[in-house]
């Protein structure tokens, strides 16, 4: 008996892990080195429901709960954090806001191809001068009657180079400050939709993170998500869910680092014994295992709260903060246990170390999450 976990969740974990081990693990090192988005695997993930995890079956989704979503992202990230990121962002900050704030026509038109993995989603908020301070965005959308004329320069867009459906945060009323921001759905192929060069990232290298520019791009009024001026509210709601995905991703990276550290500690001999038998290494492994377990429980609890209709903003922020910092610490310890080999690309912990770092930055930095938690706790 485990909290938050039913037999269905065990089955999800077992069956997703089997897929990941078979299809993704063998190529994870190469797609990181080549910075290549593995379409050959992504095309198999679509029919399995990975791109519509919580989408109702009537819209082509798997209709799973948030706990299942966290399990899928953790398991993907355990073998390839870049793909875990692709699935997390697609589901939580693109598809979820469409389901939550879209009208019936938008849901019917936009969600099914995303849920089936035929189209990839992205969330376009960050700009060169707006990141943690989302209200500082400079992208403009001018009302032209039946459409908006949009000019935007969005950077660090996860899935950017492959995304078809992008939630674009734009300023529709320059005089209205925070209430002048709206979300428009921009679709690849629209004249003026331009994908920039891929970012040459330190980690998550298989994810095609890029800039996206909209230059005099006409976006029809029917692609306005929610009402005009609701942009920040939509963004914050999306990020409540999005940070759960990133937290699950961080747990996956930490779990992988722990497993590799244990494997190595049980093989490597120094001073005549396996290094895992040395008290110093054993203590590190104990700390790693404890922190991974704690991080996972925070993620599952926040997911469970969401599934049960309870507030989860504080809990998801705590999960994201703790899990991302845990991933960095655990990956660092795994490198330390490997010694010099841990600093070599011959061993996967080097990749986990690079992948872990950004989880403390994107979808809200650790510092922003501390602010969110402090507001929730202190009032």
């Amino acid at each position, binding site marked *: 008996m485990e909290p938050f976990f039913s037999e*269905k969740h065990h*089955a999800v974990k077992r069956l997703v892990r089997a897929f990941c081990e078979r299809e993704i693990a063998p190529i994870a090192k190469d797609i990181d080195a080549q910075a290549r988005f593995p379409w050959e695997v992504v095309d198999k993930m679509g029919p399995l429901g990975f791109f519509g995890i919580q989408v109702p079956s009537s819209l082509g989704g*798997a209709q799973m709960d948030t706990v299942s979503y966290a399990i899928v992202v953790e398991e993907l990230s355990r073998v390839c954090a870049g793909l875990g990121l692709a699935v997390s962002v697609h589901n939580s900050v693109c598809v979820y806001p469409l389901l939550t704030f879209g009208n019936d026509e938008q849901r019917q038109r936009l969600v099914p191809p995303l849920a089936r993995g035929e189209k990839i989603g992205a969330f376009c908020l960050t700009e060169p001068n707006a990141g943690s301070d989302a209200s500082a965005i400079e992208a403009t959308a001018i009302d032209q009657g039946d459409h908006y004329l949009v000019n935007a320069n969005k950077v660090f867009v996860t899935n950017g180079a492959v995304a078809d459906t992008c939630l674009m945060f734009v300023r529709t009323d320059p005089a209205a400050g925070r209430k002048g921001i709206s979300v428009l759905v921009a679709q690849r192929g629209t004249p003026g939709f331009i994908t920039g060069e891929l970012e040459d990232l330190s980690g998550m290298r298989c994810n095609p993170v890029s800039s996206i520019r909209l230059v005099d791009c006409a976006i029809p009024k029917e692609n306005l998500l929610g009402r005009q001026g609701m942009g920040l509210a939509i963004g914050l709601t999306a990020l409540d869910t999005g940070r759960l995905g990133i937290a699950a991703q961080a747990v996956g990276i930490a779990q992988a680092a722990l497993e590799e550290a244990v494997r190595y500690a049980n093989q490597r001999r120094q001073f005549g014994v396996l290094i895992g038998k040395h008290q110093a290494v054993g203590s590190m492994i104990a700390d790693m295992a404890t922190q991974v377990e704690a991080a996972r429980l925070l993620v599952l609890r926040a997911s469970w709260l969401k599934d049960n209709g309870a507030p989860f903003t504080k809990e998801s922020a705590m999960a994201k903060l703790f899990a991302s910092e845990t991933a960095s610490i655990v990956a660092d310890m795994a490198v330390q246990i490997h010694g010099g080999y841990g600093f070599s690309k011959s061993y996967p912990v080097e990749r986990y170390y690079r992948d872990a770092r950004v989880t403390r930055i994107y979808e809200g930095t650790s510092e922003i999450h501390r602010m969110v938690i402090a507001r929730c706790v202190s009032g």
Partner: protein
Amino acid sequence: MALNIIVCVKSVVLEAPSAALGSSVERTPRNSVLNPFDRPALALALELAKEEGGLVTTLSMGPPVSCWALCETLALGADRAVLISDKKAAGSDTMATTRVLAKAVNWLGPWDILLFGSRTADSDTGQVGPQASALLNKPFVGMASSIIPKEGIFLVESLTDGFVEQYLANAPFAASVHPNAASVLDCALASIRQAFDSDRVEVLTLADIGMDEAFAGEKGSPTRVISMTPAPKAKKCAFIEGGANEQAQALLEKIRDAGLLF
């Protein structure tokens, strides 16, 4: 030709029994999984049913926890799942298990093909399939790697001792399935939800299938496990020759032959 295929499966325990606990392990959802050697049998059945039409039923005997392994078979694509679960069947050896399964197969009604995994991951006898075919008085092919319908009969290929044997079998017949027989089954998330959120596994008792309890459970089991201790493992070193690709292929084959990968 629509086929009625029955696949016998088992929920196996992942952990070896501890000496301190004697020779039995309490089965829990956490330590029990669908026998990995049954997956190729189910995959082969589903491929056949997809190509020829028909229904795939999975059948198991075991404690209530076995229900979850059967749920997994539903998630993987089986049309129907039946569990014989009865305290009077506890402690059954392979003979008693075979009697119960054979009775359940007859209870299920007319069938065309009865499939088994090559063995189980937790007891490794490989006896139930051949014994069931004998009890049911039907032909049996061991280690089937493919089953191809051919003008009313079936061409069954078997991989045994490094040879490919071909048989022509009339339905109904039984077969155990080679671990490499069928492609791997992936499971869609929606299928997992449908299988686990529903109450589709039919749970029956010995009385439900008309089984005389005297022939099941410990009472009906002619064999007894007297003791169980871990066997000493001798380390063996083998050199694989050839180029890198050939070595990798040979290593993969060894892992497959050991039943660790399908």
